[in-house]
C-alpha cells in the first residue's frame, strides 16, 4: 500500500537527538501502546514460528521443546495437506475469475445512473452486505438455499428436484462464489467508482467527437482508466491467494465434508488446534506466509515491468 511519505523537512540545522526527543516526548508516549501491540501480537508470534522446527510440547514450552530439524515438513507430502492446497488454489482461481470482475461491472452500472439520489440509494443498498458477518451470511443462505429454503421450495413447486446448495459438495464452489459476490462486490465498487470519477471528462468528449459510440468509449477510455486500480487490486489479491477466507470455509466445511470443503486455513485449524499437531501445522502456516510474501513481491515487480506503480516502489 502506497503511503504518503514523510518528506524529510529541509532543515539546515538539524536539531540534536536529545532536543528532538524532548520535542517529541508526548508524541512518542502516545505511540507506545500501538508499538507494543504490533511487537507483541505481530512480531512475537513471528518468532513463534520456530516451533515449525521443533517437537512442540505444551508443558515444555517454546524454548525447551526439542529441535527436530525439518521433520515437521513431512506434512507437506501428506494427501490431506495436498487436498487442502488443491482446494485452496481452486477456490482462489474461481474467486479471481468470477468474484473479482463483479465489482467492476457493478461500478460501471452504478456510475451510469444519472440521478444522484437514486445512485446514492443504490450505493447504500449494495454496501450493506459487507457489514454482515459470515455467520449471518451463511445463515441467510441456509434459509434461502438450504434443504427447506426458498430455492428448494421454488424448484419443488416447478416439479424439479428440490435443490439444496448447502450440503452438496459438487455445487459447493458455486455456493462459495455466490456468497462472496453477494457479500463483497458492492463494497468492492468503492475503489472503482473513485477511479471512474478521476477519469478526465475531456477524454470522453474527444472520443465522442472522433465518432466513438458508447461501447467504444467504454473499451477505449473507461477500461484503460481503470487499469492501474485493477492491477493494484490484483497484486493485493495475489498476495492473499492462499487465504481464501477462514470463517466462510470453517462454517461450511462440515456440511459438505472435508474432501470438498477443506482449505489451508481450516486444515491448520483442525490439524493444529483441534488435534494438537502443533509443529506440522505451524509448517503449513509458515509456508503459506512465505509463499504469500513472495507472491506479493513478485507481482509488484511485475507491475513495475508494466510501468505501473504497484503497491510500493
Amino acid at each position, binding site marked *: 500500500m502506497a503511503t*504518503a511519505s*514523510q518528506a524529510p523537512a529541509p532543515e539546515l540545522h538539524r536539531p540534536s537527538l536529545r532536543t528532538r526527543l524532548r520535542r517529541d516526548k508526548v508524541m512518542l508516549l*502516545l505511540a507506545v501502546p*500501538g508499538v507494543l501491540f504490533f511487537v507483541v501480537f505481530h512480531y512475537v508470534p513471528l518468532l*513463534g514460528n520456530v*516451533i515449525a522446527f521443533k517437537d512442540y510440547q505444551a508443558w515444555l514450552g517454546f524454548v525447551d521443546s526439542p529441535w527436530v530439524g525439518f521433520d515437521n515438513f513431512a506434512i507437506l507430502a501428506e494427501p490431506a495437506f495436498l487436498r487442502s492446497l488443491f482446494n485452496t488454489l481452486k477456490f482462489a482461481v474461481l474467486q479471481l475469475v468470477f468474484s473479482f470482475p463483479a465489482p467492476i461491472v457493478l461500478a460501471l452500472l452504478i456510475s451510469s445512473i444519472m440521478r444522484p439520489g437514486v445512485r446514492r440509494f443504490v450505493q*447504500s443498498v449494495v454496501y450493506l452486505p459487507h457489514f454482515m*458477518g459470515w455467520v449471518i451470511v451463511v445463515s441467510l443462505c441456509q*434459509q434461502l438455499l438450504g434443504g427447506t429454503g426458498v430455492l428448494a421450495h421454488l424448484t419443488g413447486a416447478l416439479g424439479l428436484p428440490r435443490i439444496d446448495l448447502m450440503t452438496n459438495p459438487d455445487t459447493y464452489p458455486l455456493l462459495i462464489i455466490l456468497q462472496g459476490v453477494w457479500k463483497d462486490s458492492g463494497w468492492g465498487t468503492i475503489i472503482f467508482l473513485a477511479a471512474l470519477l478521476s477519469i478526465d471528462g475531456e477524454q*470522453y468528449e474527444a472520443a465522442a467527437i472522433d465518432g466513438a459510440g458508447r461501447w467504444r468509449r467504454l473499451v477505449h477510455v473507461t477500461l484503460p482508466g481503470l487499469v492501474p486500480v485493477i492491477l493494484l487490486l490484483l497484486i493485493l489479491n495475489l498476495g492473499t491467494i492462499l487465504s481464501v477466507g477462514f470463517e466462510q470455509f470453517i462454517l461450511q466445511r462440515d456440511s459438505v465434508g472435508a474432501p470438498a470443503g477443506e482449505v489451508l486455513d481450516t486444515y491448520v485449524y483442525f490439524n493444529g488446534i483441534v488435534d494438537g499437531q502443533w509443529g506440522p501445522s505451524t509448517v503449513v502456516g509458515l509456508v503459506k506466509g512465505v509463499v504469500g510474501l513472495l507472491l506479493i513481491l513478485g507481482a509488484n515487480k511485475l507491475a513495475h515491468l508494466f510501468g505501473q506503480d504497484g503497491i510500493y516502489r
Partner: protein
Amino acid sequence: MEAPSTVEQIAKVVAVVVVCFLVIYPFVNIIATSLSSEAEIVANGGVISLFPTRPTLDAYQAIFAGGVVSRAMLVSFGVTVVGTACNMLATITLAYALSRPIVAGRPILMMVLLTMLFGSGIIPNFLLVNALGLYNTYAALILPGLISAFNFLVMRNFFMNLPQELFEAARIDGAGDLRILLQLVLPLSKAVLAVITLFYAVAQWNAFFSSLLYLQDTSKWPLPMVLRLYVLQGQPVGIDSAAVAGEALPSIQAVQMAVVVVSVVPILCVYPFLQRYFTKGVLTGAIKG
C-alpha cells in the same frame, strides 16, 4: 453526448432493480419467517415468501425470555462497546503520533506496514494468547486485533491531510501535542472517526473466529457463536420452557430466524448514520496515498 437508447435504459433499470432485490430480499425473508407461526410455516412448506398473514412475536418472546440468546446478546454488546473503545484509543494515538515527522517515526511506520505483507500464522498466535494467560477471557477477543493496519493507515492519512498551519499556530500559542489532538485534530476528523468506529464495531459484533479459538466456556459465547450453534449446526434453541409454558411453542424455524434478526438489527441501526461518509473519499484517499 447522445442519450442512451430506450432499450439500454430499460436494461439498466432492470439490472439495478434486480441487484437491489437480491441484496434486500434475504433480509425480508428472515424477518417474515421470524414473525410467522408454526402453522403458517408448515402450511407453506417452510417458506414465507413476503410477509406472514398473522404475524406473531412468539419467537422473540421465546428468545428474550432469558437463557442463552439474551446472555449472548449482552456479551456481544459488552465486547463490542469495550473492544471498539480500546481499538479507537490505540488507533488514534498511534495514527496521531505518526502523522508528523517525529523521532523514530519512519521505522515505526515500516514496522506497522510490514505486518500487512506477512501474517504470522494461526498456531503461533494461538500459542501466544495461551502463554499470555488470555485463553478463555474476553481480552482474547479484543487485544489480538487491537489495531487494524488498514484502519490505522486511513486515519493517519486523514490526520496528515488536515491543515498543519492550524496546529503550528496553536503550538505558538502554547498548546501541547495532547491538547492539539483533543481540541483540534479530533473535532476536525469526525468523518474518519465515524467510519473507523463503524468498521471496528461491526468487526467486534461479528467476531466469530476469535471466539471459536479462544472461548472455551459456552456461557461466555457471544452472539455469532450461538447463531452458528442454533442455525447452522441445528441445535435446538435453549428456550426456558417454563417461561412459555401453557402456550404453543413457537416454530423452531421462526426462532432460528429471530436469532438471525437480532444479530442483524444492531448493524442495520447504525449503518444509515455512518454510510454517508463512505462516499466522501475517506477510504479511497488512503489507498491512493
